[in-house]
């Protein structure tokens, strides 16, 4: 047998959980201000997460998917993208939206069961949360095609979970992005679990990054709990996409530290030891310790930041809770641009005699 093709999957990590640094750091990571900004965003995202879970526990929010432990990915995605880029998110990485300017109260509205939450006021071309797994991947192909067709230096960033990589949609999307060399970056947040299904039951592939081989472009792994690594590799991938060099796939290795959602109890299917081991790799702790150690950040700074973030989340919750509800008839008002007369009577029946 003659060898006709060869492939490699690379792995990047700069700062590990014992604060060991490998290799020369990328430029941005040598500017404390940049790392502090990222750390702030991660801290804020975590405060949001905590608040949301609290609201859910007290019956003031619907089922919520926590991002706990995956903030480095979420924030790296949000900060690496330009405002004019388009995010095609899954449901978990709230921090990506937040760091792109979506307001906490907007996200709470969505998770509280109010459609207005996805009518956010910034980054208005970003996609809404995709609940059906991997369905957003082919949307990213369309978005990327639109950018390329209009000759715009913009990038579509599609975030998926490890479970999502088992679905045909994911594959059809990466394959097409390869064919047309589209400006799309696929980010797989491999948190080792898809609800109760562990990563080895999703695929026998040693890495999820190598799925890109099937689509004819490169895939790579990155330490998903190392903000510096994720951000660095994303910067490169976005730059390649923006300059016409086509799609990338980045598998970010991380861990879902919380339950799948507030409706899940992960103790049913995984061990406390495993969770504990990953707690030591917490991406926030890692970045904080590094900043503290570097002297650019102090315990006092940190306390202030925590309070500030808590306050921000509290305020957002307040705004969310005080927002007047939508009228029931709103369910007809965004169905089509104009409500077809076939449904006018249904709308009227719903409105009742008093209403419009």
């Amino acid at each position, binding site marked *: 047998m003659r060898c006709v093709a060869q492939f490699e999957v690379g792995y990047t990590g700069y700062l590990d959980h014992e604060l060991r640094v490998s290799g020369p750091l990328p430029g941005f990571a040598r500017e404390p201000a940049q790392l502090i900004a990222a750390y702030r965003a991660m801290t804020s995202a975590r405060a949001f997460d905590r608040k949301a879970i609290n609201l859910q526990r007290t019956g003031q929010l619907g089922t919520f998917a926590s991002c706990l432990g995956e903030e480095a990915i979420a924030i790296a995605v949000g900060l690496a993208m330009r405002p004019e880029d388009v995010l095609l998110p899954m449901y978990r990485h709230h921090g990506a939206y937040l760091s792109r300017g979506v307001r906490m109260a907007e996200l709470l509205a969505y998770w509280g069961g109010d459609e207005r939450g996805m009518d956010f006021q910034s980054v208005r071309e970003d996609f809404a949360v995709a609940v059906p797994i991997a369905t957003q991947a082919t949307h990213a192909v369309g978005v990327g095609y639109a950018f390329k067709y209009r000759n715009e230096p913009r990038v579509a960033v599609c975030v998926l979970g490890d479970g999502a990589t*088992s679905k045909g949609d994911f594959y059809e999307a990466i394959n097409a992005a390869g064919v047309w060399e589209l400006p799309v970056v696929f980010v797989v947040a491999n948190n080792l679990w*898809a609800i109760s299904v562990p990563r080895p039951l*999703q695929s026998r592939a040693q890495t999820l990054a190598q799925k890109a081989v099937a689509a004819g472009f490169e895939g790579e792994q990155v330490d998903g709990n190392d903000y510096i690594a994720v951000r660095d590799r994303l910067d490169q991938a976005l730059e390649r996409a923006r300059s016409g060099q086509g799609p990338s796939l980045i598998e970010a290795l991380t861990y879902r530290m919380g339950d799948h959602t507030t409706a899940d109890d992960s103790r049913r299917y995984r061990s406390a030891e495993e969770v504990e081991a990953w707690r030591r790799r917490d991406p926030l702790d890692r970045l904080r310790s590094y900043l503290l150690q570097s002297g650019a950040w102090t315990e006092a700074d940190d306390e202030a930041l925590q309070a500030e973030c808590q306050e921000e989340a509290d305020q957002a919750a307040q705004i969310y809770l005080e927002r007047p509800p939508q009228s029931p008839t709103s369910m007809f008002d965004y169905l089509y641009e104009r409500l077809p007369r076939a449904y006018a009577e249904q709308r009227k029946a719903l409105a009742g005699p008093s209403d419009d």
Partner: protein
Amino acid sequence: MPEMTLVGGVNAALAYEMAADDRVLVFGEDIGVNGGVFRATEGLQQRFGPARVIDTPLAEGLIAGMAVGLAAQGLRPVAEIQFMGFSYPTLDQLISHASRLRNRTRGRLTCPLVLRAPFGGGIHAPEHHSESTEALYAHIPGLRVVIPSSPARAYGLLLGAIRDPDPVVFLEPKRIYRLTKQEVADDGEAMPLDVCFVVRDGTDITLVTWGAMIHETLQAAEQLATKGISAEVIDVATLRPLDIETILESVAKTGRCVIIHEAPRSGGFGAEIAAVVAEHGLLNLLAPIARVTGYDTIMPLLKLEQHYLPSVERIMDTVYKTMEFA
């Protein structure tokens, strides 16, 4: 006799049949160690092992397709789709293969699979977790579409579905998964997959429904009784093939028919029932056939979902109008 909830009936039927027949395999997402997100498969993997109770990769098309392959091989696959809102990738396999394998090969290959999925709204779930698209499945020749609405029927109909020599889509009304308990003999007795169940006798009006709406419909019937209106309530149970005789008989008796379902009105399965009554029972009708349904809109997120679901009040209103018609 053990007391069972509806989801308990599902679990008991699965356990019974797995113990009785080692051709039965159960698979889907999170159905193993986790016992399913609604615990319908709880305890099965422990009892029957991971070769028979299989957590699949996250791919509904795969789940449906492998069920076809297993069924063609003489096994009895029972696949779970986590929510009906994620069942659409199975449609291609159901329409193109499961429903056709027997016909395509004139009986050489057959497809005794069961595809289970919870459906319906009202549990304050996220987007896509509240669908009622049973009409899509019920339009496909070669399939059976079965919907239990009590613990006993969950148990009996699911056993019937697993033993049926042809493919069955088995839709479970999750809103009433744990609403009531009922004594159900765990005796392996299956129920037939081609009959409607008259769950309340009446003489003035026929209320036809299925799934979780049975609950509101029975409540309405009870309230109507206090107003002197005797409502007969029919649980359709099997949408394909439809037992039109039971419905027509009832309408022949009452002269009035209201159909209640959660799904959007237009093209919902209520239309088929109305059409059948209009074709075969027209002369018996004392009033127009009315439908109380979900609206022709997207099922709203949880804040508004209660406005979408047909309520006892909406049912009663329509019944009054139908009774007053002259």
